[in-house]
């Protein structure tokens, strides 16, 4: 198919439709509303299900119900709405049904703002709903990658009977750029041996997240984490740029990774041996890739649009081996490439001592530079 100009949110919606999406349930919230609007027009004209729910709480529970029948189903929202969905996500995880969810992140906490942010990394990767449950989290850095990851998400969700969350930030949702849309997949209701569809002559089935006997719940927790081992072994994804001879490596995901790439290219033009590692699967995180880099490079620069959430995963993998510097722009601020280039220079010229608290050092720099960062 030809490359066309696509807006991120609309591309996410159309990619899901082409992946055989049977039902979409959502609620308006900036900066993801265009997904809902695209679905509102496209799904009915294709004879598929679209419901604008009364809240994100209802939307995720509609998704939960539809997922229990084995249907390909998704919802999308932005940060405050995702918080409301956490109850449903925990139930979905406990029931082991496949669900795809997209979070077009905005500045927070609270109502925050509608600017692009990566503030929900920890919520997506570590936390969110109650109880012990892992989930796959993917982060695109372009409209094309968002399309590709949406397609992949449905297959992963069904393969592992798990939640797949795509965390894009507002700029991925709002930007327009050329991208190639995959062909339309045939629409059909997949038959699973666990799905609740009406017993129709077979033994009746029940889908539930209740395990009243703690020993059974323990077995469920263990089953989820055994499955997670399989996911960790097979589904780690990252993209490497100029890493072959790199002495210093910038690590950033999504839009922060994309902006960092511009800075890395500028540094290369100056003759600096700098590369970029852009994690695509944030959960499972490419710990092994980072750990291997930590054996041979001289320093890391972690760049995020938050106060250092992925930083903690990098620190785990680095285990204090090489000097680590952090640069974050939280609250809806997107860093410019020259800011990151400045940080690269600082890392190369004066690497921090290993073991130094990278976040604290960053916070002190930010404070020194005028209380609210060095660029407004």
């Amino acid at each position, binding site marked *: 198919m030809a490359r066309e100009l696509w807006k991120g949110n609309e591309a996410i919606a159309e990619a899901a439709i082409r992946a055989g999406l049977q039902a979409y*349930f959502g609620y308006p919230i900036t900066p993801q509303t265009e997904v809902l609007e695209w679905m509102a027009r496209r799904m009915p004209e294709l004879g598929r299900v679209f419901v604008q729910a009364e*809240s994100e709480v209802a*939307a995720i529970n509609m998704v939960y119900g539809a*997922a*229990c029948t084995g249907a390909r189903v998704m919802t999308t929202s932005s940060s405050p709405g995702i918080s409301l969905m956490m109850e449903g996500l925990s139930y979905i995880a406990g029931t082991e049904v496949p669900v795809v969810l997209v979070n077009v992140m905005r500045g927070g906490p609270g109502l925050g703002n509608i600017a692009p942010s990566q503030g929900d990394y920890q919520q997506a990767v570590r936390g969110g709903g109650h109880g012990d449950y892992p989930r796959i989290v993917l982060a695109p850095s372009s409209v094309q990658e968002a399309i590709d990851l949406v397609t992949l998400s449905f297959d992963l969700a069904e393969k592992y009977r798990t939640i797949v969350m795509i965390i894009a930030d507002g700029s991925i949702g709002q930007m327009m750029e050329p991208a190639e849309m995959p062909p339309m997949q045939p629409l059909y209701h997949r038959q699973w041996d666990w799905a609740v569809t*009406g*017993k129709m002559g077979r033994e009746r089935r029940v889908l539930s997240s209740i395990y009243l006997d703690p020993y059974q719940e323990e077995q469920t927790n263990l089953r989820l984490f055994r499955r997670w081992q399989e996911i960790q072994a097979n589904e780690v994804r990252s993209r490497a740029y100029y890493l072959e001879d790199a002495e210093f490596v910038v690590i950033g995901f999504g839009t922060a990774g994309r902006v960092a790439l511009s800075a890395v290219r500028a540094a290369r033009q100056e003759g600096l041996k700098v590369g970029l590692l852009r994690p695509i699967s944030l959960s499972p995180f490419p710990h092994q890739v980072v750990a291997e880099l930590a054996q041979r490079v001289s320093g890391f620069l972690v760049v995020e649009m938050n106060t250092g959430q992925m930083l903690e995963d990098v620190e785990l993998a680095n285990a204090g081996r090489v000097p680590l510097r952090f640069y974050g722009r939280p609250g809806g601020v997107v860093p410019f490439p020259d800011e990151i280039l400045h940080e690269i220079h600082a890392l190369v010229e004066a690497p921090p001592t290993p073991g130094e608290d990278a976040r604290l050092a960053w916070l002190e720099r930010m404070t020194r530079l005028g209380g609210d960062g060095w660029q407004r």
Partner: protein
Amino acid sequence: MATLTAPANIVFTRPEGLTEFPTHYCPGCTHGIAHRLIAEVLEEMNVLDRAIGVAPVGCAVFAYNYFDCDFVEAAHGRAPAMATGIKRVLPDRVVFTYQGDGDLASIGMAEIVHAAARGENITVIFINNANYGMTGGQMAPTTLPGMKTTSSPSGRDVETQGYPIRMAEMLATLEGAGYVVRRSLHDPKNIRLARKAIRLAFETQVRGLGFSMVELLSTCPTNWGLSPVEALRFVEERMVPYFPLGDYRVSPAVAQIRV
């Protein structure tokens, strides 16, 4: 013994729609009656094979053990949203929720109102026993004024704790609702009327005539601190006056149905 179980001598059996799983309900509680009525209706309509139930959180949390059909278990109050998801992708299935007053009229108020407003073709069986039973008898949105519960120990004070909510009347204002009625389970006559209403509610659904709900006034002898017989009398004498029995919305198309 052999003669007792001869087909000609059997006058009462477990309906096909109920499993042999013993229920956990307290002695004298009317959940068992409500379950039986639903099971009889599903069997009578020959829809057990394509029925999907949505269990609530509350005393009926284990309802999925007792009905011989496919079931899912919802989060507290979210059963109508979950039922919406199921019904929209499988429109030819018979989808019903079974919810108590805390689940439906408190934490799940938004979900029930909007499912009715959208005219979702689902059937809701609403058990109103004026308290949160599973957690030990706290005040519910349907607790009567002055009624003592563990969270209104001096009796529900309407000045600070507000008034009971009449759900059937409220939902009956919505255009999407095809059939919304209130019945009671306090005596055989009312049980028969409740059964007929449940049948009409499911008929409303299978004919695609919109949202249907049967509110059933029910007992909670354990948490009310009454004997089963006293509890039935409480329903008749105290609950029925506050929650009048009747048909609150019967759309013209539903009114044509004869069962």
